[in-house]
């Protein structure tokens, strides 16, 4: 059986989906987290259910991308049952959509999620009455606590065609609908005819297109339809009912029905929000307090990341680098030739060990912490705080959300830009996302900061520096947005409303552990597929000599001038170039390149970085420039591919490549110049 999960944004569809299928769709406590539908299977009593998770939407008007997707999925013939997930805390608004879905299909089951949570705050929902009024099965569940699933699937499996409640729109419109329906009856259509008639009356373009498509080889029928339509519209106009009036009446009747249903089936003891939540929001979104809290939270997160990752990092590097010799010895015993051992151990294994020991720990700590903030519901509040700043750049306030996602992975941030409706603002969000240091670059920046800016054990200072770097990154992404919106993507910002979700206790067991595991595994996987071959390749290039110079030396020499101009050197520049497949390997590759020149072997963690880098002429200026270049340089291959996929254009993909690169070269050069002038 094919099942679709539909509903308002942030009602827990993805949570339900994950709980059922065991898949790992990302979930978060904010509207618009899911932008792509996902598919999974669930077995109940040996029966297979294919479940599709659809992005949430407030209505089925098909005006924006998510709504169009939702409408298409729900009306699809292959779907055996649509499970409408409703949030018990905002049941009336949720029923608005449920009623619209009931109009579109008769195979509906309503799920009331968070019913127990709502009861605690004084909203009592009478399921039996609800079921009788709606005339479709209604089930109480709690997706987070995995309650009510067996009942839900009992109902899904034994689903019998129902005739859900119909919203009536008054004599005039009903009359018009009947007339159009009559004509549509002779056309072979897959969507509910009443639904089509209503949308045609509203003059919904997409629906006209749909009807046109299905009458392609029967122009007489189409002609007849338009004739009847004209007649009906004329008739309505005579009574003083314009197109706008039709639209308004339809919408009003739906929400009035939702209101009536709720007044019967739901009792509220207290409809106001608790003072605690109100106070929290006053603080989190206040003019000054909002920013103070935001910076404070970030510094705490950075502090924990720094302290935690140091410990893990030391342990891992100890373990990994000490086993290097053992592996070499083992390979010698097996009888592999010398160059082979060299290549795999000093090439592949060493880069791999570097990535795991130095890059992995910060990610493994930062990401779960970030997930906690997301799960609590803090992200939409950040978006609100930064809204004004983004508005000043003529960008959308929702860009703050994609920026936040960029900290995890730029590709995710780029895909997430779909929540922005305006194409212009979406492009800005996509093109500027790579300015945000993602999980692959973040540890490298962190490493450089610990080595050059916060000597010793002073983690408070280190996290302050890190905070500064992050602020610079966000700020440059805003400047880039400003430049874009005043040159190639001119326009005025559109307004937006963003739902402020309830604060929820984060699901430590579920999400945090899952994000830790999935992140760690993902990085490990990338480490294996990218850094190991890269290490092997690098070793080969380092050991092939042409005219007394290694192949790499030629490349490094070639980039030396531009590297020097930017306060770096050719080696680092080359490392950045080699890091295109994955930014995680940039620093390890640079280490390897250096060590081959100076015959210094980096066989320990962060401690050796300091000696190695300074022996190769690194100073404060180099470090600052390197950090800047980490923020602003070409996006990794995955990000570029995602940009290509999202924009469908080579031109924009190229711009996504060029914009941060030019920024990086310019900023680094200026920084270098400034340092030269001062020192």
């Amino acid at each position, binding site marked *: 059986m094919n099942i679709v999960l539909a509903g308002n944004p942030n009602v827990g569809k993805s949570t339900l989906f994950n709980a059922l299928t065991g898949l790992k769709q990302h979930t978060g406590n904010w509207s618009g987290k899911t932008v792509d539908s996902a598919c999974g299977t669930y077995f109940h009593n040996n029966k297979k259910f294919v479940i599709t998770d659809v992005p949430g939407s*407030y*209505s089925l008007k098909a005006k924006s991308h998510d709504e169009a997707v939702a409408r298409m999925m729900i009306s699809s013939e292959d779907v055996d049952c649509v499970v409408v997930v409703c949030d018990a805390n905002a*049941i009336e608004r949720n029923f608005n959509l449920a009623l619209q879905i009931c109009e579109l299909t008769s195979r509906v089951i309503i799920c009331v999620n968070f019913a127990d949570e709502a009861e605690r705050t004084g909203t009592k929902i009478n399921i039996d009455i609800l079921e009788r009024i709606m005339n479709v099965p209604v089930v109480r569940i709690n997706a987070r606590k995995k309650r009510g699933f067996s009942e839900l699937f009992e109902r899904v499996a034994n689903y019998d065609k129902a005739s859900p409640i119909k919203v009536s729109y008054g004599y005039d419109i009903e009359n018009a609908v009947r007339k159009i329906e009559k004509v549509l009856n002779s056309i072979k259509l897959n969507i509910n005819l009443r639904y089509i008639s209503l949308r045609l009356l509203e003059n919904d373009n997409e629906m006209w297109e749909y009807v046109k498509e299905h009458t392609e080889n029967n122009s007489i029928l189409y002609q007849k339809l338009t004739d009847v339509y004209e007649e009906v519209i004329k008739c309505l106009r005579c009574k003083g009912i314009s197109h706008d009036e039709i639209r308004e009446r339809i919408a009003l009747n739906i*929400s009035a029905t939702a209101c009536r249903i709720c007044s019967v089936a739901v009792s509220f003891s207290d409809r106001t929000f608790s003072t605690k939540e109100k106070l929290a929001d006053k603080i989190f979104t*206040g003019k000054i307090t909002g920013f103070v809290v935001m910076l404070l939270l970030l510094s705490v997160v950075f502090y924990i990341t720094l302290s935690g990752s140091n410990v893990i990092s030391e342990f891992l590097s100890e373990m990994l680098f000490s086993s290097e010799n053992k592996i070499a010895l083992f390979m010698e015993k097996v009888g592999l030739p010398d160059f082979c051992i060299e290549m795999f151990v000093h090439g592949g294994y060493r880069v791999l060990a570097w990535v795991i020991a130095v890059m992995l720990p910060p990610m493994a700590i930062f990401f779960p912490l970030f997930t906690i903030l997301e799960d609590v519901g803090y992200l939409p509040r950040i978006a*609100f705080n930064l*809204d004004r700043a983004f*508005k000043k750049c003529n960008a959308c306030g929702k860009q703050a959300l994609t920026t936040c996602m960029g900290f995890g992975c730029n590709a995710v941030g780029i895909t997430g830009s779909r929540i922005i409706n305006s194409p212009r603002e979406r492009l800005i969000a996509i093109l500027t996302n790579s300015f945000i240091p993602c999980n692959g670059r973040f540890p490298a920046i962190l490493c450089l900061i610990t080595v050059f800016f916060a000597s010793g054990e002073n983690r408070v200072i280190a996290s302050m520096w890190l905070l500064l770097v992050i602020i610079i990154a966000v700020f440059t992404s805003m400047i880039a947005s400003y430049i874009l919106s005043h040159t190639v993507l001119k326009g005025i910002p559109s*307004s937006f*409303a963003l739902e402020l979700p309830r604060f929820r206790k984060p699901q430590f067991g579920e999400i945090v552990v899952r994000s830790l595991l999935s992140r760690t595994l993902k990085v490990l996987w990338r480490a294996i597929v990218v850094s190991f071959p890269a290490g092997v390749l690098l070793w080969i290039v380092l050991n092939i000599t042409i005219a007394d110079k290694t192949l790499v030396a030629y490349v490094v020499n070639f980039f030396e001038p531009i590297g020097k101009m930017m306060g770096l050197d050719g080696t680092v520049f080359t490392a950045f170039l080699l890091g295109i497949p994955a930014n995680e390997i940039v620093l390890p590759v640079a280490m390897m390149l250096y060590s081959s020149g100076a015959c210094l072997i980096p066989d320990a963690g962060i401690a050796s970085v300091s000696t190695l880098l300074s022996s190769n002429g690194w100073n404060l200026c180099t470090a600052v420039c390197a950090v800047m270049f980490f923020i602003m340089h070409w996006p990794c291959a995955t990000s570029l591919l995602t940009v290509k996929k999202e924009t469908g254009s080579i031109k924009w993909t190229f711009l996504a490549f060029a914009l941060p690169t030019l920024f990086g070269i310019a900023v680094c050069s200026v920084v270098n110049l400034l340092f030269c002038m001062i020192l």
Partner: protein
Amino acid sequence: MKLTEAIEEKEYIIKKIDTDDEELDAFLFSLGCYSGEAITVISHLKSGCIVSIKDGRYNIDKELAEAIIVG
């Protein structure tokens, strides 16, 4: 008057949504924000305000707030 002039924590009834942007109108509608409905401003901010409509809380920006006429 416009919603931007409303007093915090006081319930108002929406008189009209003053906008030419059909999409915006439809969006506000789907949130339950249309004439005849109750709306409460929880707090005003420089960039907009936080409002509570029915059971939901939303942050809306200044332009939107100015388009909502309450009485």
